[in-house]
């Protein structure tokens, strides 16, 4: 999820910075030695001697004064050591910004039964419910009322399977478009669907409005069907392919993405990736299942190592293809490349509770669609509006510089501290995976920029632009 954050004023840090180890990462590419600075996600080329010196230094323990002396001696443009400018990110929590995105949990039921679904067939652990139309329309009005004047906003449809609430989805899109015109907001839409029930009318709706459609994909026919069980024994994969054909024939959305939830049973990622690309998706992306109703389907321990290996294999392929000037829509990689190029830095993992909220079927607001029903992340209601105090508390709590061990990690402003839902249920089992993936991406960024400088001069793919166009993970 890409969410633009508005950072509040910067007070003095409550505690001193944890030292150079938390501020920088030395890495190497085919083009020499490089330095990544956490503050501002800045990437530099450095002489190998400087890189060696820094790596040796980081292996030991040093006082902050010693760190500062070294930084000054090497001319590193880091925080107060350079004495030049304030940090990009202070430890002040972000002020709750105007809303930019709201997802509607329109149908807490699904026509498939997937063991790894965090939504637990849309019940999110509770009884399945459908959102009344009046609640959905009120939620849209609430989003428009809470948005900054003239800002683009995103309405997301979540489930269960949101297309089971087809009539509501269509009505909300019509209403939101008209209401947005009246209030001066351009409204975009996002839906996460298994695509097994998509109709011609749905396809036209997706094509006629600015829609990002994310389709759940778990593999080729066998892999997909092994995890996605359609009721009555039908092939969920075949139904999904039928859905793709409906889209091709009756209207293709502006952006059509495949989302692969990776479990310990997922087969080789590169095969899956190429399979997805072969199906004609604009983008294929992976997400590890960290928290699932069936613990056997959660990635853990060595599973992360295998996941990282698989991701890097896909990344290497993407790098080779893109470096040769050929498109290769590996979503995680493309996102990382553009974010590294722009130096995206944020003290939160996503916009949940900040610019993004999720409305439950009953009209309550939560920090995100994965946290619906969790009282710790309750954020008000559609009727009464967002609970600003709850949002503020959430943003105070969630600032990555206030969390251990995050505040000592060089990757914290890229990662943001991990998905709130996963952290609250499983903790942070995947930190090494995240660092490993980002370290690979840093190297790949330099090599890609060197091979195809023009790659970053092109506007990034539409789905990487602000504001959030995808509200699903």
């Amino acid at each position, binding site marked *: 999820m890409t969410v633009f954050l508005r950072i509040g004023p910067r007070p003095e840090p409550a505690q001193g910075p944890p030292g150079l180890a938390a501020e920088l990462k030395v890495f190497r590419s085919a083009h020499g*030695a490089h330095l990544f600075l956490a503050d501002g*996600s800045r990437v530099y080329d450095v002489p190998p001697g400087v890189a060696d010196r820094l790596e040796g230094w980081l292996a030991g323990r040093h006082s902050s004064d010693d760190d500062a002396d070294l930084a000054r001696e*090497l001319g590193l443009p880091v925080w107060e050591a350079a004495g030049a400018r304030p940090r990009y990110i202070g430890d002040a929590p972000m002020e709750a910004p105007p809303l930019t995105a709201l997802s509607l949990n329109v149908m807490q039921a699904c026509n498939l039964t997937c063991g790894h679904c965090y939504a637990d067939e849309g019940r999110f652990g509770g009884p399945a419910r459908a959102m009344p139309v009046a609640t959905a329309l009120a939620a849209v009005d609430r989003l428009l009322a809470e948005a900054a004047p003239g800002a683009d906003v995103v309405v997301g449809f979540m489930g269960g399977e949101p297309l089971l609430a087809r009539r509501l989805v269509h009505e909300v899109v019509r209403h939101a478009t008209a209401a947005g015109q009246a209030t001066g907001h351009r409204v975009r839409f996002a839906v996460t669907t298994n695509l097994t029930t998509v109709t011609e009318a749905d396809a036209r709706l997706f094509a006629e409005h600015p829609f990002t459609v994310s389709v759940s994909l778990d593999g080729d026919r066998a892999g997909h069907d092994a995890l996605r069980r359609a009721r009555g024994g039908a092939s969920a994969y075949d139904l999904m392919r039928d859905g793709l054909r409906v889209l091709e024939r009756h209207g293709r959305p502006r952006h059509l993405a495949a989302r692969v939830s990776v479990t310990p049973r997922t087969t080789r990622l590169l095969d899956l990736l190429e399979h997805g690309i072969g199906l004609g998706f604009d983008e294929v992306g992976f997400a590890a299942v960290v928290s699932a109703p069936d613990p056997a389907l959660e990635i853990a321990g060595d599973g992360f190592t295998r996941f990282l290996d698989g991701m890097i294999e896909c990344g290497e392929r993407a790098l080779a293809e893109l470096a040769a000037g050929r498109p290769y829509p590996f979503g995680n990689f493309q996102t990382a490349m553009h974010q590294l190029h722009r130096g995206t*830095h944020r003290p939160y993992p996503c916009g949940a509770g900040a610019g993004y909220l999720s409305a439950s079927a009953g009209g309550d607001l939560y920090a995100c669609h994965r946290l619906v029903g969790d009282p710790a992340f309750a954020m008000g209601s559609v009727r009464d509006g967002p609970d600003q105090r709850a949002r503020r508390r959430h943003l105070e709590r969630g600032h990555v510089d206030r969390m251990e061990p995050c505040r000592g990690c060089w990757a914290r402003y890229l990662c943001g501290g991990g998905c709130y839902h996963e952290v609250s249920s499983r903790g942070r089992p995947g930190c090494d995976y995240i660092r490993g993936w980002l370290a690979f991406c840093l190297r790949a960024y330099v090599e890609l920029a060197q091979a195809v400088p023009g790659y970053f001069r092109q506007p990034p793919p539409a789905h990487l632009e602000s504001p959030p166009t995808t509200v699903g993970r």
Partner: protein
Amino acid sequence: MPDQDSGVPLGKIYPRNLTARADHVVRGNPAGSRPESGVDNCYPGLEFDQRNLDKAFFPGLVVEFHRPDGARIVALTGGGPAPAQGLTAADLPLDIWAVCGRTTVDQGEEAAPTIGCDDRNGLEVWRAVHDLLPGTVALLIGPGPGITSPGSDPVRGDLNGFRRRGTSILQRAPDGSVQVGVLVADRARYLDDDGVIEPEAYEPGELTRSLCAPWQYDFRDCGCFYWAASKPDIVTSADGLHADLNFQRRDRVSDPPPKDGPRLAGRRELELDYHELIADWGVLPVVLNDREGESRPAPAHPGVEPLTPEQVADELAYLATVEHALCVQYLFAHYSLDAPMRLPAGADSRTRRVYAAAQEIFGIAIDEMRHLRWANEALGVLGRAPVLGRAETIHRQLRTPFSLQPLTPRQLDWFIEVERPSQASGGGIDGMYVRLHAALTGDPDAFPEADRLAHLIKLIIDEGADHFRRFTAVKTHLAGLSEAEYLRRLDHKPAPGLDTSLLDLADQNYALLLDALRATFALGDAAGGLLIEQSRRAMFNLHETHHALSARGVAPRFTLPLDPVLEAGDSGTELRRRVAELGGPEQREAMLRQEADAQTLIAALQDRAGG
């Protein structure tokens, strides 16, 4: 030197992604900036006025673009096609009516545009001229301003035909006056082979002559969007009653003030013209939040009684003793701070701050030493002997006695007060110099080498302003620290032993230093580097001894010697031996070095005394 592995120069860190690049401060214009890549008539940093660069764009002609009515030929330099056409200085002024030449590299010769100067002011003609590429250029010239000329009509718009044929013509009326002419030549170049502005083509000051300074007329021409600092354009009157006034209006007495006009042409006529702006720029008030302050006339030249060279020399002789006294007072204040001579690695924040304050003051003391030297240099020019006495009173009006005081907040405030810049004559220390400067520049013929003297005095005045700022910085460094946290407790009467030996040695070093300076100043320009370098070492040795003392909690005493060392006899060797015996290894090493320095210096002084 590039690193062999990466191609990255050693020690260089290069920004790669967007945030790193945004964070990278580029000092100055990009390396690719060229004189001709300026923004309109001003170079990116307002370094010069490009209209001056193009004044000689056509061989043999000098063209003035700074005119509202077009571009005028104001002089002939003898080259180009003009002489062959019989054009002489008596025919001038003539104006440019049209210009033709290639302006883009993809233009063929046949497509070179003709730019008529009708309805163009000088700046607009210059823009067309500046765009001309190297190669053949044709000018249509005639009597009368270009802005009201017929443009290229006299040649029926076919100036390019003349250009391509290389045909120059001049048509005169029966009375011999020029009716119209076409001159064709290659555009003159203004860059040399290295791409640098051709030094032979321009006189010093010629390129900047019309450039932004309040007393120069570009202030009039530059819009507020252009001005390097914030130049007001539309303002409210000082009493707040009248809005939307023209800041540069000439009429500054009418009530109500004249309303501003909406059009440029009408506005210009109501504004101070070039001459008025140069003469009376002081009537323009300070503007804050779009509101004018009260107008103040430009400060008059300090009104002082003319001083004779004798009086100037007397004053300088006193000021030299003041510089000496200030230098010593500042040094004492430096030693009173609880900071080491050199900052050790890993020093804590308090030590770093006190050290920063101490270094600032030490730097100012060095400046005062330099002022002492310059004052003596000026005395030398005026035929006086060197002055190395030390004033008993620092400030004539305040009658502050010389004394060695630690850097308490009160003492710091006094230092700031002493160094406060003063344009009034005779006020603070620099005010005294202002008075001398006024005397020197007011009647330069009365003084030998008046320019050099004025320059020396000006240097001292300018550094004084910097001292004010630096003492204020000392205050910032020490802010929040109590006296107990940054001051040493200095004992004025230590027990006999190492401390008293060090004190005696410091006195000896001080005496030797004054001897060395006296000899150096007496030699003046003939001193060469040797004696100065030896004096510098004597200074360092004195400084080192004082640091050793103050670190031990003993106050340096700066005893003024009664007689020169050579006459009083040198007791230094014995003192250094004693200090070496009583002190630790560091002091033994320092004493060995100091002994060598002292003996070398004494030998040089004896040589000079003997010679």
